[in-house]
Each structure stands twice: as structure tokens, then as C-alpha cells.
């Protein structure tokens, strides 16, 4: 089909878009376009990052001008197409427009620096041709045809890129270890076992630009001397897996994977191993055990996988985001990459903005941005104009940072100094309605459940910490509990086998450090100031606001609310179970927790 002169419609078709209803929008667009009434054609792309406005369509006119529309529904499709045909823009739906990039939500994108996400949302991830048209696979061809493995490692080393899976180990150095390791067979593994609650950058990259990861793997495999690679991807990512399958098959057809790739005598192939969804399998030794068909449990290091990895052979494991940056680094030069960022943290980092942030979505920013820039300039600040309270960096292994640390730089060392970690890139924003003790309890309940059970400090220690937190939230905390948590946390951090246990206490330690008053409120004053912990709150109705509509009484599951029609109602505190259904239902916002 010739596309010349036609308007291009690109539908965001990642998991986020589909979850928001993009499938119905796609169907509607297809059937409307099939009528032939419109001089336009439809393509799909992965997540553009505007998750908060999905489903999204980017409309690009023949003259190159584009408008991104959000909040689409199947019903809105005819209206959209009519407007297009009439050459009009539907202002209310506009997310971003190329002729005024900062307008609308445009600054979400213009404040970013996209290297890893360079193609996400721009190309059809199921088309190798579209990837190649962006210069894709040129870097792999260049490395295989004109560079020695050592030169490739040096280039990556020069870029200063550090492992984006969380630990931040310099990638070039890691490759160097695997290159130097002795072994008749070496393996490369792409760690796509993204498991932090609130983190979805790897999924978005795999769904939006799988070829960038594959190309990164081809380069990495050549550099370290691995002819066989695995992508360890969780089975809960069916779309990512499907697009990887399509991409790998296309690479085989093009001669980019298999025997003698890119016309050289170098063999390289990739197999996908589906993980069954254990958080701990993101830890490299547990991941290796899982690929080998064993229960995913970590083992102590040393020996490191670079020397004894998969099937006992030298193995190099890199994260999705790291690998996706590699082709760019080779194509543009390590020095170009290193020109972005801070002294010790180079390049960019992809963050998943989630929680109470106004623009929840996927954002890539240069290292050296402040957290404030990420959350406010890119993320648009806190939802409903509420006050920012904290940001949880690095998921359940990370820490909660208060407003006073908003000027901390996005930099491995700067973030580590606060007690949080860069982690894989989850950023969960909390506002005044978030109880920090409850948040710490939530994250610990996650790590506790995901502990593999192998070592004692993690298996029983985090359980005991969780029990203390649960008691505090239930109003049964004791004055000594804060110290108990700190003492136990120190031994768990020092004594655990792997990073899961070693970092599990971080959310507790950072909330104890930065939000100690909330712990004291719970324990000493029997109060949950955020109004979250059921045992510590009382729900009340403001008589001056209540109109007596009875909506609250209707939803109350325990009939704790009474009152005459059109007269202020009241809640019987003894019967109330603090489910807060009434609070969410009241049209006048007359119900509050104290």
C-alpha cells in the first residue's frame, strides 16, 4: 500500500493502551478506514509514555505536522476522523502537538531525553523494516564487520553506562570480565524479569522496541564471545513475549540471528525462557537457576556468573534497558552518551511514574536531573493539586524520600546516599493521603512474600519486621518497636544471601528516618494522620456539610450510618468497620477520617 500523501494514524498499542481500551479503538479505526472515506492509514506502536491519557493516537499529516490525541474511545473515532478530514484539531483531546511542543501535556515529552525509548511509540514494534528504517541494526553490522570485541567493549566502557537493572555496575567492566573468562561456551542473558510493583520500563521497551534489545544482545554476544543467548522474560508479559517472538523470527529471516550473521562467520542465537513470576528471579544467580530448570533461588557470589554462570559456563547478564541503549552508544559513540549525565552516572534513566503523580507514565530523563524535575516538570506534580509527601525510589528494595530531598540528583551515588536506591526505575509518588507506615508495610509484605525462603534473615527476619509493622498499623505498636525494627533491619541487611533480603528493610529504614513522627503518631499517640490505618481512625460526618442524601448509609455494609432524610447523618463508631466506602461515595465530601 502506498502511503504517500496520506495521513498516518499511530495507535499506542502497548499493554497500557490495550488495558485502557485501545483494542476497541483499533477495531473502530480499522472499520472506519476500510470505508475508504478517509485519506489515512493506521499503524500501531508501543507505549509513547503518556499512559495517563491512553488510549492514544498520534496523527501525522503528510506535511510532517503531528498531533497526539488522548482518552480515545471507539465512539470518538468517527468524530476524530471527521475532524481530520476537515483539517481541524479537536483541542479538548490534544495531548501534544508538534507545532507547539510544550502546550497541553507536551512538556511531559519535551522535558525528557530519549535514548532507550528513542523508538518507543514511534515505530511499529512488529515490523523489522520500521526498525531498520531508523538506522536499526547498523550498529550491530558495524561492530561485527569492523570492530574487534575489545573495541566494542571499550566503546561501551567509554560511554560510562551502568547496569540499569538496579545495581548500577559498569556495563563495560562487566563485559570485560565475561570476555576474559575462560570457557568453551559462553552465554549472554537478557534479564527481562521486571518485578518491582509500579515498574514497567522493561515491558514497555520490549513491547515498543524489541529490536533495540535484540540488537544490543547481538553486540553484547559478539563482545563477550557468547554464541547463545537467552531472554528471561516473565510469562505475565504476553505482549512483550509475542513481539519478541515476531522480532526474533524476522531476524532469522534477515540473517541477523542464526549461523553466520550479517554475512560474517559469527553465529549467534537467542532463546526465550519464560519466567513464572518470581520476583527473586531477577537476581542473577536465581535467574540462572531458573533457566536451568531449578527452583529460582540465589546462591552466594563469588563465583560470579562472569566466571561460573549458566550451566557453569561464563555468563554475562544485562538488563533490558541497558541492552536497548547499546546500539545507540555504538552508533553515536560512547563519548556522546557520556556527555549526558553526571560525573559518575552517565546517560539517561527511564522511570516509571506511578502513584499519586499527575502524569503516570514512562519517562526517560538525563542523569543529573533532580527528583523535583522528574516529578514536577515531567510528571506534572501531584494529582488533584495535593501536597507532595514522598517518593518511593527503586521499588520494594528502595526507599521513601521526603520533600526536603526533592533536589537530590538522579545519580547512583546521590540517591544511595539518601538510603534509597536508583533501582530499576520505579517512582511511586505519595501525597498527604498516604500513610508512610502503611506504605512501608506494603512494600515489606511484597518482599516477604517474594522471598525465596533460602536464607534465614530474609525468610524469618522480614516476616518478623512485617509483623511488627502490622501491629503498629493495627494500633498495637510498642515504644520499643522502632528500635526493634532498626536493629533487626541491620542484621537482615548484613546477613542476607542476596540483594532481595539485603535491601528489603530499606523502605522501613527510610520511612523511620524521614517520617519518624508518623511512627510515633501510630505508636505513642494512637493516630494515623493520613487517615489510612483502619484501627487508628474514626470516620465522622461534618454536620454543616452533610445534606442528608443518604448515599453513605446505602453503601455502608454494616449499617453504621443513620439519620433522617435531608438531615445530617452520623456514624456509629462502634459498628463502623472503617472500610471508607461512605467516604468515597459522599457527593459533598462531608465524611472525613481522624
Amino acid at each position, binding site marked *: 500500500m502506498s502511503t504517500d500523501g496520506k495521513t498516518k494514524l499511530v495507535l499506542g498499542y502497548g499493554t497500557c493502551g490495550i488495558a485502557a481500551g485501545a483494542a476497541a479503538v483499533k477495531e473502530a479505526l480499522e472499520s472506519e478506514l476500510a470505508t475508504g472515506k478517509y485519506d489515512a492509514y493506521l499503524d500501531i506502536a508501543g507505549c509513547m509514555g503518556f499512559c495517563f491519557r491512553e488510549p492514544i493516537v498520534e496523527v501525522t499529516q503528510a506535511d510532517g505536522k503531528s498531533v497526539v490525541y488522548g482518552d480515545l474511545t471507539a465512539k470518538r473515532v468517527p468524530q476524530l476522523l471527521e475532524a481530520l478530514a476537515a483539517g481541524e484539531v479537536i483541542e479538548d483531546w490534544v495531548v501534544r502537538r508538534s507545532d507547539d511542543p510544550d502546550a497541553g501535556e507536551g512538556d511531559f515529552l519535551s522535558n525528557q531525553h530519549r535514548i532507550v525509548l528513542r523508538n518507543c511509540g514511534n515505530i511499529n514494534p512488529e515490523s523489522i523494516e520500521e526498525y531498520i528504517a531508523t538506522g536499526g541494526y547498523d550498529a550491530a553490522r558495524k561492530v561485527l564487520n569492523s570492530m574487534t570485541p575489545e573495541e566494542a567493549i571499550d566503546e561501551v566502557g567509554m560511554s560510562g553506562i551502568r547496569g540499569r537493572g538496579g545495581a548500577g555496575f559498569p556495563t563495560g567492566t562487566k563485559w570485560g570480565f565475561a570476555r576474559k573468562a575462560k570457557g568453551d561456551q559462553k552465554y549472554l542473558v537478557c534479564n527481562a524479569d521486571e518485578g518491582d510493583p509500579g515498574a514497567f520500563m522493561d515491558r514497555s521497551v520490549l513491547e515498543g522496541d524489541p529490536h533495540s534489545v535484540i540488537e544490543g544482545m547481538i553486540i553484547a554476544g559478539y563482545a563477550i564471545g557468547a554464541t547463545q543467548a537467552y531472554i528471561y522474560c516473565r510469562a505475565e508479559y504476553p505482549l512483550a513475549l509475542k513481539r519478541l517472538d515476531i522480532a526474533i523470527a524476522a531476524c532469522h529471516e534477515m540473517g541477523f540471528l542464526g549461523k553466520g550473521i550479517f554475512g560474517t562467520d559469527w553465529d549467534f542465537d537467542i532463546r526465550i525462557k519464560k519466567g513464572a513470576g518470581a520476583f527473586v528471579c531477577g537476581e542473577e544467580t536465581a535467574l540462572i537457576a531458573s533457566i536451568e530448570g531449578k527452583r529460582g533461588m540465589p546462591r552466594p557470589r563469588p563465583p560470579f556468573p562472569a566466571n561460573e554462570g549458566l550451566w557453569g559456563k561464563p555468563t554475562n547478564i544485562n538488563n533490558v534497558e541497558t541492552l536497548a541503549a547499546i546500539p545507540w552508544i555504538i552508533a553515536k559513540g560512547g563519548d556522546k552518551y557520556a556527555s549526558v549525565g553526571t560525573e559518575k552516572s552517565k546517560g539517561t534513566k527511564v522511570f516509571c511514574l506511578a502513584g499519586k503523580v499527575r502524569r503516570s507514565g514512562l519517562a526517560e530523563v538525563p542523569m543529573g536531573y533532580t527528583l523535583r524535575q522528574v516529578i514536577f516538570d515531567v510528571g506534572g506534580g501531584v494529582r488533584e493539586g495535593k501536597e507532595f509527601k514522598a517518593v518511593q525510589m527503586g521499588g520494594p528494595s528502595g526507599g521513601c524520600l521526603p520533600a526536603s530531598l526533592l533536589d537530590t540528583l538522579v545519580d547512583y551515588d546521590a540517591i544511595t546516599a539518601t538510603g534509597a536506591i536508583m533501582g530499576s526505575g520505579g517512582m511511586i509518588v505519595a501525597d498527604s493521603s498516604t500513610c508512610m507506615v502503611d506504605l512501608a508495610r506494603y512494600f515489606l509484605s511484597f518482599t*516477604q512474600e517474594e*522471598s525465596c525462603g*533460602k536464607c*534465614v534473615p530474609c525468610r524469618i527476619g522480614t516476616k*518478623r519486621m512485617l509483623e511488627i509493622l502490622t501491629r503498629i498499623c493495627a494500633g498495637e505498636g510498642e515504644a520499643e518497636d522502632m528500635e526493634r525494627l532498626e536493629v533487626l533491619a541491620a542484621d537482615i541487611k548484613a546477613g542476607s544471601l542476596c540483594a532481595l533480603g539485603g535491601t528489603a528493610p530499606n523502605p522501613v529504614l527510610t520511612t523511620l528516618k524521614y517520617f519518624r513522627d508518623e511512627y510515633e503518631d501510630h505508636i505513642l499517640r494512637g493516630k494515623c494522620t493520613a487517615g489510612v490505618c483502619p484501627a487508628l481512625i474514626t470516620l465522622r460526618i461534618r454536620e454543616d456539610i452533610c445534606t442528608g442524601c443518604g448515599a453513605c448509609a446505602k453503601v455502608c455494609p454494616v449499617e453504621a450510618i443513620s439519620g433522617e432524610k435531608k438531615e445530617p447523618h452520623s456514624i456509629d463508631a462502634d459498628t463502623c468497620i472503617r472500610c471508607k466506602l461512605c467516604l468515597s461515595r459522599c457527593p459533598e465530601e462531608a465524611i472525613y477520617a481522624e
Partner: protein
Amino acid sequence: MEKIHMNIDGKDIETTSDRTILEAARENGLRIPSLCNEQRMEPYGACRICLVEVEGARGLLPACYTTVTDGMVVRTATDELMRIRRTILELILSDHPKDCMTCESTGNCELQDLAYEYGVKDHRFRGEEHHYEVLADNPLIERDYDKCILCGRCIRICREVQGVGVYDFVNRGFDSVPGIPYNKPMMESPCEFCGQCVSTCPTGAIISIPSKGKGRTWQVEKVRTTCPYCGCGCQLDLHVRDGEIVEVSSPVMVGPGQGNLCVKGRYGYPFVHHEDRLTRPLIRKGGELVPAGWEEALETVSKHLRKAMDGKGPDSIAFLSSARCTNEENYLLQKLARAVVGTNNVDHCARL
């Protein structure tokens, strides 16, 4: 193997580069406590009791898993390490029955010994405790996972040493526990009832049913002998109380079996005290088996052998030996067949 020099707790020692810190310490008379480590298996690094401080290393390292290097300086009992060990023991005890009084393994329990040594009680961490059903679904092995410390030794000895793999961990986190696929009874699993899991379990989580209640470790006399079942020569310790064998174990890293036994060696002892056991020769006289002396019995055998030889030739006779005899005994029997009787008709039950 390269010779190396290192220092543990101020003591200079010489060892070889294939050793772990734990092995090097042990060989030099230094004790580093451990729970999940056992010499018959690969190191595992789970219990964290053997954590040590290695100069220049990031974080604490498990002595059982860490290979020594030249110039390594190790500290095994710093304040931090002692504190962490106590915490770990306390955590284990916080989910462990306090029934040492009646526990089968009292006196033979590595957890009990360490709790004693470190003066640990479980008072600091109250919380949920597991209450599993005691599994006694077969005549030999009983499992009480309330007492399991998840050292993985049963799982590993079954897989690494026996090559069977009956167990693995099931569930996650606090609820992790060793199990048999689909929670089937042991009789329906590939278990060979060698009892190797019993032999390595550091607590009373896996015990031998036939030995239950029959004697504490200090109440029995251990009599070293060689297993009579085959020619391997595994060393046995018969646990004898009041003239009765109440249990059989094998000393770890001793003899050809290195402490490993099969089902016959470990559990095949009731014949010793069985009333049907043959304790003297019997000669069939007029269709009846009649007790006889050794002299008479051997004379009878010799007489009949000679009769057969003289009448129908040596090849009318065949000798059938047994795997329960030693190699030397089997050698002598074939010598008797070939050199004395003159036949090559020699066979052995283990060939069948």
C-alpha cells in the same frame, strides 16, 4: 593444587587454593559454626551462621562457600558477626517448637548445640509459628516440618549424593518448606528409603521411626562394624542399648561409604534380633531340618560335593555366591570352585 597462606583470627595457616574458608579453618583446628553445611554435599550458603569478615571484601561472606585466596585475612568472631549469629539463631527459634524435652534429636541436634553455645532464647521476636502435620506415611521415615530450619540438606543429599531427588522446597518466603511433589506420601514417591535425609538432618525434623524413643545419643553405645550386606564395606555405627541395636548410622567421611548408607545398611538390622534368624547349621535328615554342629555340617557338604564330582564330574557342580559376602570371601569361593573342585560354574546373585 596451589599452596596458599592466609590468616584466620590472627593465626597464620597454610592451605591449598581448592579449600573453602570453612574447610581451611577446620583443618587447622579452628571452628566456624555452621548449620546448612555438611561435608558430603556441595556448599549452599543458606543459613548465614558461618558468615565471616574477609578483609577487603564487600559485605560478609559465607565461610562454607568462599574459596580461599593467598593472603586472605579472615575474622570469624567480631562483635557484628556474633550479634548476627545470635539474631539468626533467635529468628530460627522464633519459629521452632520448644519441645527439646521429648524431641528425638535432643543431644544430637546442631541447632540445640548452637543455641546452647550462644546462650540464645527466642524471646525477642514473637510472631507466627508454623504448625504442620507430622508426616509418618511409611514405616521408616517421619517428617515434622515444625522443626525444619530449611537448611536444604535433605533435599541436597537426596539429589547430589543419592541422585534421586525426592524433595524440593515448595512455597515461598516464610512458608517455604521441603516437600514431595504434589505432597504425595513417601511410598508413592521415588524414595528408596535410604534414610540419607535422616542422617543429615541437623534437627529433629526428619527421624527414623524404628528408633523413636529407644535411646538418647548418650544412652547408647556405638559399636563400629562393617555393613554385612554387600562388598562395599561401608562403616556402620550400631547404636546399642541394653544389648539391642536401636539405630544404625555411618560415620561421616569415614571408610568407603563416607557416611552414606543405603536402605539395607541403615534399616536392615532387625534380622539381628529376629527369632527366625539362623544361628547354627541345619542338616536335612529324613525330610526334617535338624540342628547340627559346624564340624558335621561341613563334613556333610564336603562328602556330597566329592560324591557329585566323582560320579558326574566337576561340572555337575555350580557355586553361587552372594553380594553380602566381602570381595575376599567371594574370591575364596571361586578359588574353591576352580582350584579345588575344578569347575568354572561360578555365579553371583548381583549379576542377575
